[in-house]
């Protein structure tokens, strides 16, 4: 009656030499992600002065600070909803296109170029003498140039330019995962375009759309460079990331900076978890037609 060796017993539970390959990456993440996170949490509870919760009390009692949450939401939520609302019909159309590659390549440009470049471009494009105002004046839509930079709408436009392609490409990857035979079956049974969308596509898309919403929202919520460059960073587009950055690197109060950064993460996770919780109420299952 020999007991199997420790090595054999561990291997039976999936722990052997191959599993150890995990360690370098894991140690790195613990050292540079988990540890700083806990450090930040502890740091935020040791304020420069006052009780342990002083940083949080300071943030939530100063309207200049706590209003940044509303300012960020007021930018991120509408933009994300608009991006998603446009992404779905466009993706359903583009799905039928045979040569999507050119379009998807163009749309991936703003994502890869990043918000700083887009902000720089929009400053010229949307400026009082830029092409945008020029075109609208020429078409007679406007009588005088409309101010679109250094305010809310500049940041809104930048989130639209980088966010729509992101939402669209994600939605497209979900839409193409739905078997066309399902739509054909619905059409054969007499469903019109509206019925096919609301009763066939939409229910199948809801899980994917929830994930798309979350990822798009994360990006919009974290808006930072364009809110400074294109917005009014002291006024309506003083978003929470600006507040966190200023506390940590302009007032050199890393304790307060960490506290605001954690509040930012908590607010964002609350929205994401709410959306994911709503998603779990809907249908989740195969979107393929043939093999269940």
């Amino acid at each position, binding site marked *: 009656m020999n007991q199997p060796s420790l090595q054999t017993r561990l291997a039976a539970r999936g722990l052997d030499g191959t599993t150890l390959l995990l360690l370098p990456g894991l140690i790195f993440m613990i050292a540079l992600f988990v540890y700083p996170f806990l450090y*930040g949490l502890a740091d935020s509870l040791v304020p420069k002065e006052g009780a342990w919760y002083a940083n949080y009390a300071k943030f939530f009692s100063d309207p200049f600070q706590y209003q940044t949450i509303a300012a960020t939401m007021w930018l991120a939520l509408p933009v994300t909803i608009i991006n998603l609302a446009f992404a779905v019909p466009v993706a359903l159309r583009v799905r039928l296109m045979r040569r999507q590659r050119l379009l998807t390549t163009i749309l991936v440009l703003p994502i890869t170029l990043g918000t700083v470049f887009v902000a720089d*471009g929009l400053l010229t494009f949307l400026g009082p003498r830029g092409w945008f105002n020029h075109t609208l004046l020429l078409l007679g839509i406007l009588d005088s140039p409309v101010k679109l930079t250094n305010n809310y709408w500049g940041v809104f436009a930048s989130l639209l330019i980088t966010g729509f392609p992101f939402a669209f490409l994600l939605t497209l990857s979900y839409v193409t995962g739905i078997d066309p035979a399902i739509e054909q079956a619905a059409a054969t049974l007499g469903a019109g375009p509206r019925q096919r969308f609301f009763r066939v596509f939409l229910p199948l898309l809801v899980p994917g759309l929830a994930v798309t919403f979350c990822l798009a929202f994360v990006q919009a919520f974290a808006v930072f460079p364009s809110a400074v460059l294109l917005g009014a960073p002291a006024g309506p587009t003083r978003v929470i990331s600006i507040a966190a950055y200023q506390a940590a690197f302009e007032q050199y109060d890393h304790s307060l900076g960490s506290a605001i950064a954690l509040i930012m993460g908590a607010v964002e996770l609350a929205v994401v978890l709410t959306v994911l919780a709503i998603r779990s109420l809907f249908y989740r299952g195969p979107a393929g037609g043939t093999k269940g």
Partner: protein
Amino acid sequence: MIRDQGLTSKIWRFAIWALAILFVLNLLAVIAAVIVNSFATRWLGTWLPAGWTTRWYFSAWKEFQLSSVVLVTFEIVFTVVIISGILGVTTAYALARRNFPGKGLVVLLFLLPLLIPPLTYGIPLATVLYRLGLGGTFWGVVLINIVPSLPFVVLVMIPFIEQIDPRIEAAARVFGAGTTSLFLRILLPLLLPGMLAALLLVLVRTIAMFELTFLIAGPTTQTLVVSLYYAVFASGVRAGQSIDAMAVVYMVTTLFWLVLALQFVNPTQIVARAKQQSAH
């Protein structure tokens, strides 16, 4: 494919195409505005500038010390790519091949940095790095950039490794291959296309990664995108054309690698993380 012929369907179809085309036009115009302005002698309130010149590129190259900035950018980006590639592929291999207690937790740990705003973990991490004396240094910038890149490599590589049949490795073992030759002669050739795609995507993302680099970069360790931010932030100090010339340099640097990456991956994969490979 179903074609609806009703009038409302046609109007709807037209509206959607019009919307998509309008968006693409605006997007291209934003990029074109930067390029046109960088070649302009003077551009005030007209459709096109008064004249064309290339001198802004020379002045931008000197003013912003672009030769050293570009060099630093590439040093940082390639170091990030190599380190996150090595760590990421080994981690992804273990995660794809083994099931062990606590695996869900480990996967969650690699998902979180992609779900949390960069500034949320960036500010505490930057504080720690400054405390260690790494603020403003080359390795500080590299370390902070690996935090989002490593999970990205892992998540791209896991489905890719899963589709390689483990029996191939077993067969190589049967024929007497040691671990080294198994890795070099069996796994590496099979993994190379996936690795290339993942690493090129990390490369493009790291060049454009602003928030994290911005927190830690010092005067000698600014990457292109951070220098661009400072230039736009202090616009008015320098000619707008000069800033836009720098933006074009940044754009060309990014697009070169993007075009290369698109030889190996579908544009959708840049956001959707190799979903389509597993959809087969």
